[in-house]
Protein backbone atom coordinates (compact mmCIF):
# COMPACT_ATOMS: atom_id res chain seq x y z
CA UNK A 1 0.00 0.00 0.00
CA UNK A 2 1.55 3.29 -1.06
CA UNK A 3 0.28 5.57 1.61
CA UNK A 4 0.22 9.32 1.14
CA UNK A 5 2.11 10.75 4.08
CA UNK A 6 2.38 14.18 5.64
CA UNK A 7 3.93 15.38 8.85
CA UNK A 8 3.03 17.12 12.04
CA UNK A 9 5.52 18.58 14.51
CA UNK A 10 6.13 17.49 18.07
CA UNK A 11 8.88 19.59 19.59
CA UNK A 12 11.58 19.66 16.93
CA UNK A 13 10.59 16.21 15.68
CA UNK A 14 8.43 15.46 12.67
CA UNK A 15 5.79 12.78 13.19
CA UNK A 16 4.37 10.87 10.24
CA UNK A 17 0.70 11.51 9.41
CA UNK A 18 -1.12 9.11 7.14
CA UNK A 19 -3.60 10.75 4.77
CA UNK A 20 -6.47 8.52 3.65
CA UNK A 21 -9.04 9.81 1.20
CA UNK A 22 -12.31 8.10 0.44
CA UNK A 23 -14.64 9.43 -2.23
CA UNK A 24 -18.21 8.20 -2.55
CA UNK A 25 -21.34 9.37 -4.36
CA UNK A 26 -23.60 12.04 -2.90
CA UNK A 27 -23.74 15.79 -2.59
CA UNK A 28 -20.36 17.40 -3.05
CA UNK A 29 -18.80 17.75 0.41
CA UNK A 30 -15.32 17.60 1.87
CA UNK A 31 -14.79 16.56 5.45
CA UNK A 32 -11.39 16.33 7.07
CA UNK A 33 -11.14 14.32 10.26
CA UNK A 34 -8.23 15.09 12.53
CA UNK A 35 -7.77 18.83 12.01
CA UNK A 36 -9.22 21.72 14.00
CA UNK A 37 -12.33 23.20 12.32
CA UNK A 38 -10.89 26.54 11.24
CA UNK A 39 -7.87 24.85 9.69
CA UNK A 40 -10.11 22.39 7.84
CA UNK A 41 -12.12 25.17 6.23
CA UNK A 42 -9.05 26.99 4.98
CA UNK A 43 -7.20 23.89 3.86
CA UNK A 44 -10.28 22.59 2.04
CA UNK A 45 -10.66 25.77 0.02
CA UNK A 46 -6.99 25.91 -0.93
CA UNK A 47 -6.84 22.26 -1.95
CA UNK A 48 -10.04 22.30 -3.97
CA UNK A 49 -9.16 25.51 -5.80
CA UNK A 50 -5.68 24.21 -6.59
CA UNK A 51 -7.00 20.91 -7.94
CA UNK A 52 -9.64 22.66 -10.01
CA UNK A 53 -7.04 24.78 -11.80
CA UNK A 54 -5.40 21.48 -12.84
CA UNK A 55 -8.62 20.14 -14.30
CA UNK A 56 -8.96 17.53 -11.59
CA UNK A 57 -12.58 17.95 -10.49
CA UNK A 58 -13.43 16.69 -7.04
CA UNK A 59 -16.94 15.29 -7.00
CA UNK A 60 -19.20 13.62 -4.48
CA UNK A 61 -18.61 13.04 -0.82
CA UNK A 62 -14.93 13.31 0.05
CA UNK A 63 -13.80 12.03 3.44
CA UNK A 64 -10.20 12.79 4.40
CA UNK A 65 -8.85 10.96 7.41
CA UNK A 66 -5.62 12.04 9.08
CA UNK A 67 -4.10 9.36 11.29
CA UNK A 68 -3.16 9.21 14.10
CA UNK A 69 -6.20 11.25 15.07
CA UNK A 70 -5.05 12.27 18.54
CA UNK A 71 -1.97 14.22 17.36
CA UNK A 72 -2.44 18.00 17.06
CA UNK A 73 -1.95 19.02 13.43
CA UNK A 74 -1.50 22.14 11.38
CA UNK A 75 -3.53 22.62 8.19
CA UNK A 76 -0.92 24.45 6.13
CA UNK A 77 1.63 21.64 6.47
CA UNK A 78 -0.91 19.12 5.24
CA UNK A 79 -2.33 20.91 2.15
CA UNK A 80 -0.07 19.08 -0.25
CA UNK A 81 -0.57 15.52 1.05
CA UNK A 82 -4.34 16.13 1.20
CA UNK A 83 -4.34 17.35 -2.41
CA UNK A 84 -2.19 14.40 -3.51
CA UNK A 85 -4.47 12.01 -1.60
CA UNK A 86 -7.55 13.41 -3.35
CA UNK A 87 -5.93 13.33 -6.78
CA UNK A 88 -4.88 9.74 -6.14
CA UNK A 89 -8.41 8.71 -5.13
CA UNK A 90 -9.86 10.10 -8.34
CA UNK A 91 -7.31 8.01 -10.23
CA UNK A 92 -5.58 11.12 -11.55
CA UNK A 93 -2.19 9.84 -10.45
CA UNK A 94 -0.47 6.85 -8.94
CA UNK A 95 2.91 6.31 -7.38
CA UNK A 96 5.03 3.36 -6.47
CA UNK A 97 7.01 4.46 -3.45
CA UNK A 98 5.71 5.54 -0.05
CA UNK A 99 6.35 9.28 0.08
CA UNK A 100 6.12 12.22 2.42
CA UNK A 101 4.62 15.47 1.15
CA UNK A 102 4.64 18.88 2.75
CA UNK A 103 3.65 22.34 1.64
CA UNK A 104 0.97 24.99 1.82
CA UNK A 105 -1.02 25.48 -1.38
CA UNK A 106 -1.83 28.86 -2.83
CA UNK A 107 -5.20 29.03 -4.59
CA UNK A 108 -3.44 28.87 -7.96
CA UNK A 109 -1.60 25.67 -7.02
CA UNK A 110 1.81 27.13 -6.23
CA UNK A 111 3.54 25.82 -3.12
CA UNK A 112 4.51 28.05 -0.24
CA UNK A 113 7.35 27.25 2.14
CA UNK A 114 6.36 25.70 5.45
CA UNK A 115 7.97 25.29 8.82
CA UNK A 116 9.35 21.93 9.85
CA UNK A 117 11.12 20.92 6.61
CA UNK A 118 14.36 20.01 8.40
CA UNK A 119 12.63 17.77 10.99
CA UNK A 120 10.64 16.21 8.12
CA UNK A 121 13.83 15.53 6.18
CA UNK A 122 15.39 13.77 9.16
CA UNK A 123 12.25 11.67 9.63
CA UNK A 124 12.08 10.77 5.91
CA UNK A 125 15.73 9.74 5.94
CA UNK A 126 15.30 7.52 9.00
CA UNK A 127 12.27 5.78 7.54
CA UNK A 128 13.66 5.56 4.02
CA UNK A 129 10.87 7.64 2.48
CA UNK A 130 10.98 10.04 -0.46
CA UNK A 131 10.27 13.63 0.53
CA UNK A 132 8.50 16.27 -1.59
CA UNK A 133 8.93 19.85 -0.37
CA UNK A 134 8.28 23.41 -1.57
CA UNK A 135 11.20 24.90 -3.52
CA UNK A 136 11.77 27.55 -0.90
CA UNK A 137 12.50 24.91 1.73
CA UNK A 138 15.25 23.28 -0.35
CA UNK A 139 18.12 25.35 1.02
CA UNK A 140 17.65 24.16 4.60
CA UNK A 141 16.87 20.58 3.62
CA UNK A 142 20.07 20.28 1.56
CA UNK A 143 21.95 20.30 4.85
CA UNK A 144 20.41 16.97 5.88
CA UNK A 145 22.65 14.07 4.98
CA UNK A 146 21.29 11.28 2.79
CA UNK A 147 17.67 12.32 2.38
CA UNK A 148 15.99 11.68 -0.96
CA UNK A 149 14.13 14.96 -1.41
CA UNK A 150 12.49 16.64 -4.42
CA UNK A 151 11.74 20.32 -5.00
CA UNK A 152 8.12 20.98 -5.93
CA UNK A 153 7.31 24.41 -7.42
CA UNK A 154 3.57 23.77 -7.76
CA UNK A 155 0.92 21.06 -7.63
CA UNK A 156 0.84 20.70 -11.43
CA UNK A 157 4.55 19.81 -11.58
CA UNK A 158 4.06 17.17 -8.92
CA UNK A 159 1.12 15.58 -10.74
CA UNK A 160 3.02 15.66 -14.02
CA UNK A 161 5.97 14.04 -12.26
CA UNK A 162 3.86 11.14 -11.06
CA UNK A 163 2.36 10.77 -14.50
CA UNK A 164 5.88 10.49 -15.88
CA UNK A 165 5.60 13.69 -17.92
CA UNK A 166 8.12 15.77 -16.01
CA UNK A 167 11.26 15.42 -13.94
CA UNK A 168 11.44 17.12 -10.57
CA UNK A 169 14.73 18.53 -9.36
CA UNK A 170 16.32 16.64 -6.53
CA UNK A 171 17.55 18.57 -3.51
CA UNK A 172 21.33 18.29 -3.78
CA UNK A 173 23.08 17.58 -0.52
CA UNK A 174 25.33 20.43 0.41
CA UNK A 175 26.84 20.18 3.84
CA UNK A 176 29.05 23.20 3.49
CA UNK A 177 27.82 25.82 5.89
CA UNK A 178 27.48 29.33 4.54
CA UNK A 179 30.48 31.60 4.77
CA UNK A 180 30.78 32.98 8.27
CA UNK A 181 29.52 36.53 8.20
CA UNK A 182 31.40 39.23 10.03
CA UNK A 183 29.59 39.76 13.30
CA UNK A 184 28.78 43.31 14.31
CA UNK A 185 29.79 44.88 16.58
CA UNK A 186 33.40 43.75 16.55
CA UNK A 187 35.37 43.97 19.79
CA UNK A 188 37.71 46.41 18.07
CA UNK A 189 34.72 48.77 17.60
CA UNK A 190 34.30 49.10 21.35
CA UNK A 191 36.43 51.77 23.01
CA UNK A 192 38.27 50.95 26.23
CA UNK A 193 36.58 48.48 28.61
CA UNK A 194 39.63 46.21 28.72
CA UNK A 195 38.49 44.56 31.98
CA UNK A 196 34.97 43.84 30.70
CA UNK A 197 36.36 42.49 27.44
CA UNK A 198 38.65 40.19 29.36
CA UNK A 199 35.69 38.95 31.41
CA UNK A 200 33.70 38.24 28.24
CA UNK A 201 36.64 36.32 26.84
CA UNK A 202 36.55 34.13 29.96
CA UNK A 203 32.77 33.77 29.64
CA UNK A 204 33.13 32.64 26.03
CA UNK A 205 36.03 30.32 26.75
CA UNK A 206 34.38 28.42 29.62
CA UNK A 207 30.72 28.98 28.69
CA UNK A 208 30.16 30.97 31.88
CA UNK A 209 26.96 32.98 32.27
CA UNK A 210 27.74 36.64 32.75
CA UNK A 211 26.17 39.73 34.34
CA UNK A 212 27.19 43.15 33.06
CA UNK A 213 26.50 45.95 35.46
CA UNK A 214 26.91 49.59 34.56
CA UNK A 215 25.31 52.98 34.14
CA UNK A 216 23.25 53.97 31.08
CA UNK A 217 25.54 54.55 28.11
CA UNK A 218 28.41 52.52 29.52
CA UNK A 219 28.24 50.11 26.60
CA UNK A 220 26.87 46.98 28.34
CA UNK A 221 24.49 46.20 25.50
CA UNK A 222 27.18 46.70 22.90
CA UNK A 223 29.50 44.33 24.77
CA UNK A 224 26.75 41.71 25.10
CA UNK A 225 26.02 41.94 21.38
CA UNK A 226 29.71 41.50 20.61
CA UNK A 227 29.92 38.38 22.79
CA UNK A 228 28.71 35.93 20.14
CA UNK A 229 31.46 37.12 17.83
CA UNK A 230 34.13 35.64 20.08
CA UNK A 231 32.36 32.31 20.59
CA UNK A 232 33.68 29.31 18.66
CA UNK A 233 31.82 28.71 15.37
CA UNK A 234 28.99 26.16 15.47
CA UNK A 235 30.09 22.57 14.88
CA UNK A 236 28.27 20.48 12.25
CA UNK A 237 26.16 18.89 14.92
CA UNK A 238 25.36 22.20 16.62
CA UNK A 239 24.51 23.82 13.30
CA UNK A 240 22.01 21.03 12.64
CA UNK A 241 20.45 21.58 16.08
CA UNK A 242 20.13 25.29 15.40
CA UNK A 243 18.64 24.63 11.96
CA UNK A 244 16.11 22.24 13.51
CA UNK A 245 14.82 24.95 15.83
CA UNK A 246 14.75 27.60 13.09
CA UNK A 247 12.94 25.27 10.74
CA UNK A 248 10.40 24.47 13.44
CA UNK A 249 9.76 28.16 13.97
CA UNK A 250 9.49 28.57 10.22
CA UNK A 251 12.12 31.18 9.54
CA UNK A 252 14.27 30.49 6.54
CA UNK A 253 17.69 31.53 7.53
CA UNK A 254 21.31 31.49 6.60
CA UNK A 255 23.17 28.34 7.47
CA UNK A 256 26.18 30.22 8.74
CA UNK A 257 28.19 28.96 11.67
CA UNK A 258 27.76 32.18 13.65
CA UNK A 259 25.97 31.51 16.91
CA UNK A 260 22.51 32.94 17.54
CA UNK A 261 22.13 36.10 19.64
CA UNK A 262 18.62 36.64 20.97
CA UNK A 263 17.86 39.65 23.15
CA UNK A 264 14.64 39.45 25.13
CA UNK A 265 12.80 42.41 26.51
CA UNK A 266 11.15 42.45 29.91
CA UNK A 267 7.76 43.19 28.34
CA UNK A 268 7.86 40.00 26.26
CA UNK A 269 5.19 37.38 26.95
CA UNK A 270 5.96 34.03 28.51
CA UNK A 271 4.89 32.34 25.25
CA UNK A 272 7.29 34.48 23.20
CA UNK A 273 10.16 33.60 25.52
CA UNK A 274 9.43 30.00 26.45
CA UNK A 275 7.40 28.80 23.45
CA UNK A 276 3.83 27.55 23.05
CA UNK A 277 0.85 29.36 21.54
CA UNK A 278 -1.94 28.01 19.37
CA UNK A 279 0.36 26.67 16.66
CA UNK A 280 2.93 25.42 19.16
CA UNK A 281 6.28 27.03 18.39
CA UNK A 282 9.64 27.31 20.14
CA UNK A 283 10.30 30.56 22.03
CA UNK A 284 13.27 32.91 22.21
CA UNK A 285 15.14 30.71 24.66
CA UNK A 286 15.13 27.92 22.07
CA UNK A 287 15.97 30.33 19.27
CA UNK A 288 19.06 31.14 21.34
CA UNK A 289 20.00 27.45 21.58
CA UNK A 290 23.80 27.07 21.21
CA UNK A 291 24.12 30.85 21.27
CA UNK A 292 23.60 33.84 23.55
CA UNK A 293 20.36 34.74 25.34
CA UNK A 294 20.52 38.37 26.46
CA UNK A 295 18.35 39.87 29.19
CA UNK A 296 18.76 43.64 29.22
CA UNK A 297 17.40 45.76 32.11
CA UNK A 298 17.30 42.64 34.19
CA UNK A 299 15.70 44.23 37.26
CA UNK A 300 12.64 45.12 35.18
CA UNK A 301 11.79 41.48 34.46
CA UNK A 302 8.72 40.10 36.19
CA UNK A 303 9.42 37.48 38.81
CA UNK A 304 7.22 34.85 37.15
CA UNK A 305 9.03 35.31 33.84
CA UNK A 306 12.39 34.74 35.51
CA UNK A 307 10.96 31.79 37.37
CA UNK A 308 9.90 30.18 34.09
CA UNK A 309 13.48 30.47 32.78
CA UNK A 310 14.96 28.68 35.78
CA UNK A 311 14.26 25.09 34.78
CA UNK A 312 15.35 25.39 31.14
CA UNK A 313 18.60 27.09 32.15
CA UNK A 314 19.32 24.19 34.45
CA UNK A 315 18.27 21.42 32.06
CA UNK A 316 19.34 22.87 28.71
CA UNK A 317 15.86 22.21 27.34
CA UNK A 318 12.38 23.57 27.89
CA UNK A 319 9.16 21.62 28.34
CA UNK A 320 6.05 23.35 27.02
CA UNK A 321 2.86 21.87 28.39
CA UNK A 322 -0.50 22.06 26.74
CA UNK A 323 -3.78 20.20 26.73
CA UNK A 324 -2.69 17.71 24.09
CA UNK A 325 0.45 16.72 25.98
CA UNK A 326 3.80 18.40 26.39
CA UNK A 327 6.68 18.95 24.00
CA UNK A 328 10.37 19.61 24.58
CA UNK A 329 12.53 22.17 22.79
CA UNK A 330 16.31 22.53 23.16
CA UNK A 331 17.53 25.52 25.19
CA UNK A 332 21.27 25.37 25.81
CA UNK A 333 22.21 28.99 26.04
CA UNK A 334 25.00 31.19 27.24
CA UNK A 335 23.22 33.72 29.38
CA UNK A 336 24.22 37.38 29.31
CA UNK A 337 22.40 39.70 31.68
CA UNK A 338 22.71 43.47 32.00
CA UNK A 339 21.47 45.94 34.58
CA UNK A 340 22.11 49.32 36.17
CA UNK A 341 24.07 49.50 39.42
CA UNK A 342 21.20 51.26 41.25
CA UNK A 343 17.62 52.49 40.63
CA UNK A 344 18.71 55.86 39.22
CA UNK A 345 21.54 54.24 37.29
CA UNK A 346 24.44 56.49 38.29
CA UNK A 347 25.90 54.75 41.32
CA UNK A 348 29.69 54.85 41.02
CA UNK A 349 29.61 56.96 37.87
CA UNK A 350 32.61 59.25 37.40
CA UNK A 351 30.45 62.22 36.30
CA UNK A 352 26.77 61.92 37.21
CA UNK A 353 25.60 61.96 40.80
CA UNK A 354 23.61 58.99 42.18
CA UNK A 355 20.36 60.17 43.80
CA UNK A 356 19.46 56.91 45.52
CA UNK A 357 19.23 56.43 49.27
CA UNK A 358 21.17 53.58 50.80
CA UNK A 359 17.80 51.89 51.38
CA UNK A 360 16.97 52.15 47.67
CA UNK A 361 20.28 50.61 46.77
CA UNK A 362 19.92 47.81 49.27
CA UNK A 363 16.44 46.94 47.98
CA UNK A 364 17.74 47.06 44.42
CA UNK A 365 20.61 44.73 45.22
CA UNK A 366 18.18 42.25 46.72
CA UNK A 367 16.54 42.00 43.33
CA UNK A 368 19.87 40.83 41.98
CA UNK A 369 19.49 37.39 43.44
CA UNK A 370 17.19 34.47 42.97
CA UNK A 371 16.46 31.96 40.27
CA UNK A 372 18.51 33.37 37.39
CA UNK A 373 21.30 35.20 39.13
CA UNK A 374 22.42 32.07 40.97
CA UNK A 375 23.41 30.71 37.57
CA UNK A 376 25.77 33.60 36.87
CA UNK A 377 29.49 32.82 37.13
CA UNK A 378 30.89 36.23 36.26
CA UNK A 379 29.83 39.60 37.68
CA UNK A 380 31.37 42.28 35.53
CA UNK A 381 31.35 46.01 36.22
CA UNK A 382 31.15 48.14 33.08
CA UNK A 383 32.05 51.70 34.14
CA UNK A 384 31.26 54.62 31.88
CA UNK A 385 34.39 56.12 30.38
CA UNK A 386 35.29 59.64 31.51
CA UNK A 387 35.62 62.30 28.78
CA UNK A 388 39.38 62.26 29.33
CA UNK A 389 39.55 58.49 28.84
CA UNK A 390 37.48 58.77 25.69
CA UNK A 391 39.85 61.41 24.36
CA UNK A 392 42.94 59.39 25.17
CA UNK A 393 41.46 56.38 23.33
CA UNK A 394 40.76 58.45 20.21
CA UNK A 395 42.11 56.69 17.14
CA UNK A 396 43.25 53.63 19.06
CA UNK A 397 41.90 50.28 17.98
CA UNK A 398 41.45 47.36 20.35
CA UNK A 399 41.93 43.70 19.61
CA UNK A 400 39.58 42.22 16.98
CA UNK A 401 36.92 39.66 17.77
CA UNK A 402 38.70 37.21 15.52
CA UNK A 403 41.94 37.35 17.53
CA UNK A 404 40.04 36.82 20.77
CA UNK A 405 37.98 34.02 19.23
CA UNK A 406 41.17 32.14 18.38
CA UNK A 407 42.21 32.11 22.03
CA UNK A 408 38.68 31.10 23.04
CA UNK A 409 38.71 28.19 20.58
CA UNK A 410 42.07 26.98 21.90
CA UNK A 411 40.78 27.07 25.46
CA UNK A 412 37.61 25.24 24.41
CA UNK A 413 39.51 22.45 22.69
CA UNK A 414 41.60 21.97 25.84
CA UNK A 415 38.35 21.54 27.77
CA UNK A 416 36.82 19.22 25.20
CA UNK A 417 39.88 17.02 25.38
CA UNK A 418 40.11 17.06 29.16
CA UNK A 419 36.45 16.36 29.84
CA UNK A 420 35.75 14.04 26.90
CA UNK A 421 35.34 11.07 29.27
CA UNK A 422 32.57 12.77 31.27
CA UNK A 423 30.80 14.18 28.23
CA UNK A 424 31.15 17.79 29.24
CA UNK A 425 32.09 20.41 26.70
CA UNK A 426 33.02 23.26 29.00
CA UNK A 427 34.24 24.09 32.49
CA UNK A 428 30.94 25.67 33.51
CA UNK A 429 29.06 22.38 33.19
CA UNK A 430 31.39 20.39 35.43
CA UNK A 431 29.79 18.23 38.08
CA UNK A 432 30.83 18.97 41.65
CA UNK A 433 32.68 15.69 42.14
CA UNK A 434 34.98 16.27 39.20
CA UNK A 435 35.63 19.83 40.32
CA UNK A 436 37.23 18.75 43.56
CA UNK A 437 39.38 16.01 42.13
CA UNK A 438 40.51 16.79 38.62
CA UNK A 439 40.99 20.52 38.37
CA UNK A 440 44.76 20.58 38.54
CA UNK A 441 44.90 23.05 41.42
CA UNK A 442 48.49 23.81 42.38
CA UNK A 443 49.47 23.37 46.01
CA UNK A 444 49.95 27.12 46.52
CA UNK A 445 46.64 27.90 44.84
CA UNK A 446 44.86 25.42 47.07
CA UNK A 447 46.19 26.96 50.27
CA UNK A 448 45.57 30.46 48.92
CA UNK A 449 41.93 29.66 48.19
CA UNK A 450 41.62 28.00 51.59
CA UNK A 451 42.74 31.14 53.36
CA UNK A 452 40.71 33.67 51.34
CA UNK A 453 37.58 31.52 51.46
CA UNK A 454 37.44 32.16 55.18
CA UNK A 455 38.16 35.87 54.99
CA UNK A 456 35.73 36.47 52.15
CA UNK A 457 33.08 34.18 53.66
CA UNK A 458 32.74 32.18 50.43
CA UNK A 459 29.91 29.66 50.38
CA UNK A 460 30.41 26.15 49.02
CA UNK A 461 28.71 27.23 45.83
CA UNK A 462 30.85 30.37 45.71
CA UNK A 463 34.00 28.29 45.92
CA UNK A 464 32.82 25.99 43.10
CA UNK A 465 32.20 29.02 40.94
CA UNK A 466 35.65 30.45 41.62
CA UNK A 467 37.20 27.07 40.83
CA UNK A 468 35.39 26.71 37.51
CA UNK A 469 36.23 30.23 36.43
CA UNK A 470 39.87 29.89 37.43
CA UNK A 471 40.06 26.63 35.45
CA UNK A 472 38.93 28.59 32.39
CA UNK A 473 41.44 31.36 33.07
CA UNK A 474 44.16 28.72 33.30
CA UNK A 475 42.97 27.20 30.01
CA UNK A 476 43.21 30.60 28.32
CA UNK A 477 46.74 30.63 29.70
CA UNK A 478 47.33 27.11 28.26
CA UNK A 479 48.31 26.17 31.78
CA UNK A 480 47.84 22.63 33.09
CA UNK A 481 47.85 23.88 36.65
CA UNK A 482 45.62 26.50 38.24
CA UNK A 483 47.90 29.04 39.87
CA UNK A 484 47.34 31.55 42.64
CA UNK A 485 47.16 34.28 39.98
CA UNK A 486 44.33 32.45 38.18
CA UNK A 487 42.42 32.14 41.45
CA UNK A 488 42.80 35.79 42.34
CA UNK A 489 41.59 36.91 38.93
CA UNK A 490 38.56 34.64 39.29
CA UNK A 491 37.84 36.11 42.73
CA UNK A 492 37.39 39.53 41.15
CA UNK A 493 34.29 38.29 39.32
CA UNK A 494 32.41 37.29 42.47
CA UNK A 495 29.00 38.80 43.09
CA UNK A 496 29.97 40.67 46.24
CA UNK A 497 32.94 42.18 44.53
CA UNK A 498 31.11 44.01 41.78
CA UNK A 499 30.05 47.21 43.48
CA UNK A 500 33.12 48.09 45.44
Amino acid sequence: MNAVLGVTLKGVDAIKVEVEVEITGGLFAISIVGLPDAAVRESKERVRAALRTLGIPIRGRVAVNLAPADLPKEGALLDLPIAVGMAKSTGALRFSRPSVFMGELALDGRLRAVRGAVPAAIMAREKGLDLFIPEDNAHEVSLVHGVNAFKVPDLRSLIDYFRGDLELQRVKNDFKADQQKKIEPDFSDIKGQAAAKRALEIAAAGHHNVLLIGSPGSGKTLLARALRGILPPLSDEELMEVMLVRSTVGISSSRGRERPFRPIHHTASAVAICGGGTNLRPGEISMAHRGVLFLDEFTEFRRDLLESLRQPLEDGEIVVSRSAGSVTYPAQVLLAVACNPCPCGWFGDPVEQCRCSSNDIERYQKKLSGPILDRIDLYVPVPRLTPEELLSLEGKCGESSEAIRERVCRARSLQLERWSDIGSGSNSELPEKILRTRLGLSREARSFLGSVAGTLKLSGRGISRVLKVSRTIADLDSSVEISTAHISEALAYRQTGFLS
Partner: protein
Amino acid sequence: MADHLLLGKWGEDLAEKKLMDQGWKILGRNISFKGGELDIVARDEKELVMVEVRTRTFGKIMPPECSVGPDKLRKLVRAGKYYVLKNKWEGPWRIDLIAITVEENENVRIEHFPDITYGGAY
Protein backbone atom coordinates in the same frame (compact mmCIF):
# COMPACT_ATOMS: atom_id res chain seq x y z
CA MET B 1 -48.96 34.96 -15.49
CA ALA B 2 -47.58 37.73 -13.32
CA ASP B 3 -44.62 39.69 -14.67
CA HIS B 4 -42.03 38.27 -12.32
CA LEU B 5 -43.16 34.71 -13.09
CA LEU B 6 -42.89 35.41 -16.80
CA LEU B 7 -39.40 36.80 -16.27
CA GLY B 8 -38.51 33.69 -14.25
CA LYS B 9 -39.67 31.31 -16.96
CA TRP B 10 -37.82 33.31 -19.60
CA GLY B 11 -34.60 33.06 -17.54
CA GLU B 12 -34.94 29.32 -17.02
CA ASP B 13 -35.44 28.80 -20.75
CA LEU B 14 -32.29 30.79 -21.39
CA ALA B 15 -30.33 28.78 -18.80
CA GLU B 16 -31.54 25.48 -20.21
CA LYS B 17 -30.44 26.47 -23.69
CA LYS B 18 -27.01 27.48 -22.40
CA LEU B 19 -26.54 24.13 -20.63
CA MET B 20 -27.66 22.14 -23.67
CA ASP B 21 -25.27 24.17 -25.82
CA GLN B 22 -22.38 23.12 -23.59
CA GLY B 23 -23.36 19.47 -23.90
CA TRP B 24 -25.27 18.81 -20.70
CA LYS B 25 -28.22 16.45 -20.76
CA ILE B 26 -31.37 18.02 -19.31
CA LEU B 27 -33.27 15.55 -17.11
CA GLY B 28 -36.07 17.75 -15.85
CA ARG B 29 -37.53 21.24 -15.31
CA ASN B 30 -39.45 22.71 -12.39
CA ILE B 31 -39.57 19.56 -10.33
CA SER B 32 -41.55 20.32 -7.19
CA PHE B 33 -41.53 18.57 -3.89
CA LYS B 34 -43.16 19.45 -0.63
CA GLY B 35 -41.02 22.33 0.62
CA GLY B 36 -38.82 22.78 -2.42
CA GLU B 37 -38.43 23.10 -6.16
CA LEU B 38 -35.60 22.29 -8.54
CA ASP B 39 -35.51 24.65 -11.52
CA ILE B 40 -33.38 22.42 -13.76
CA VAL B 41 -31.91 18.95 -13.21
CA ALA B 42 -29.12 17.99 -15.61
CA ARG B 43 -26.14 15.71 -16.16
CA ASP B 44 -22.62 17.14 -16.38
CA GLU B 45 -20.68 14.08 -17.50
CA LYS B 46 -20.59 11.78 -14.45
CA GLU B 47 -22.23 14.23 -12.13
CA LEU B 48 -25.86 15.06 -11.51
CA VAL B 49 -26.45 18.80 -11.16
CA MET B 50 -29.39 20.63 -9.61
CA VAL B 51 -29.42 24.10 -11.16
CA GLU B 52 -31.02 27.05 -9.41
CA VAL B 53 -31.82 29.86 -11.84
CA ARG B 54 -32.06 33.47 -10.67
CA THR B 55 -33.28 36.11 -13.12
CA ARG B 56 -33.18 39.80 -12.26
CA THR B 57 -33.41 43.13 -13.92
CA PHE B 58 -30.66 45.70 -13.36
CA GLY B 59 -30.50 47.90 -10.32
CA LYS B 60 -30.05 45.14 -7.77
CA ILE B 61 -27.09 45.87 -5.57
CA MET B 62 -26.38 42.38 -4.32
CA PRO B 63 -24.03 40.30 -6.48
CA PRO B 64 -25.92 37.29 -7.91
CA GLU B 65 -23.82 34.66 -6.13
CA CYS B 66 -25.03 36.09 -2.82
CA SER B 67 -28.70 35.92 -3.75
CA VAL B 68 -29.09 32.35 -2.51
CA GLY B 69 -29.21 32.54 1.29
CA PRO B 70 -28.57 29.71 3.73
CA ASP B 71 -32.27 28.93 4.12
CA LYS B 72 -32.77 28.65 0.37
CA LEU B 73 -29.62 26.54 0.12
CA ARG B 74 -30.89 24.12 2.76
CA LYS B 75 -34.18 23.82 0.84
CA LEU B 76 -32.29 23.09 -2.37
CA VAL B 77 -30.19 20.43 -0.64
CA ARG B 78 -33.33 18.83 0.79
CA ALA B 79 -35.04 18.80 -2.62
CA GLY B 80 -31.87 17.44 -4.23
CA LYS B 81 -31.60 14.61 -1.72
CA TYR B 82 -35.22 13.75 -2.33
CA TYR B 83 -34.72 13.70 -6.11
CA VAL B 84 -31.58 11.53 -5.82
CA LEU B 85 -33.41 9.06 -3.59
CA LYS B 86 -36.48 8.89 -5.78
CA ASN B 87 -34.44 8.36 -8.93
CA LYS B 88 -32.00 5.92 -7.27
CA TRP B 89 -28.95 8.01 -8.26
CA GLU B 90 -25.86 6.72 -6.42
CA GLY B 91 -23.19 8.83 -8.08
CA PRO B 92 -21.95 12.30 -7.12
CA TRP B 93 -24.20 15.33 -7.37
CA ARG B 94 -23.97 19.03 -6.73
CA ILE B 95 -25.87 22.29 -6.78
CA ASP B 96 -25.07 25.10 -9.27
CA LEU B 97 -26.43 28.61 -9.63
CA ILE B 98 -27.11 30.32 -12.95
CA ALA B 99 -27.65 34.05 -12.51
CA ILE B 100 -29.20 36.03 -15.37
CA THR B 101 -29.15 39.80 -15.25
CA VAL B 102 -30.91 42.09 -17.71
CA GLU B 103 -28.74 45.19 -17.78
CA GLU B 104 -29.84 48.78 -18.36
CA ASN B 105 -28.93 48.70 -22.05
CA GLU B 106 -31.01 45.50 -22.44
CA ASN B 107 -27.82 43.42 -22.51
CA VAL B 108 -28.32 40.01 -20.91
CA ARG B 109 -25.54 38.70 -18.68
CA ILE B 110 -25.48 34.97 -17.85
CA GLU B 111 -23.21 33.80 -15.03
CA HIS B 112 -22.70 30.19 -13.93
CA PHE B 113 -21.51 29.41 -10.35
CA PRO B 114 -20.77 25.73 -9.72
CA ASP B 115 -20.85 24.05 -6.32
CA ILE B 116 -22.65 26.68 -4.30
CA THR B 117 -22.55 24.46 -1.21
CA TYR B 118 -18.74 24.94 -1.24
CA GLY B 119 -18.10 21.45 -0.01
CA GLY B 120 -19.66 22.24 3.33
CA ALA B 121 -21.68 19.87 5.44
CA TYR B 122 -25.43 19.93 4.65
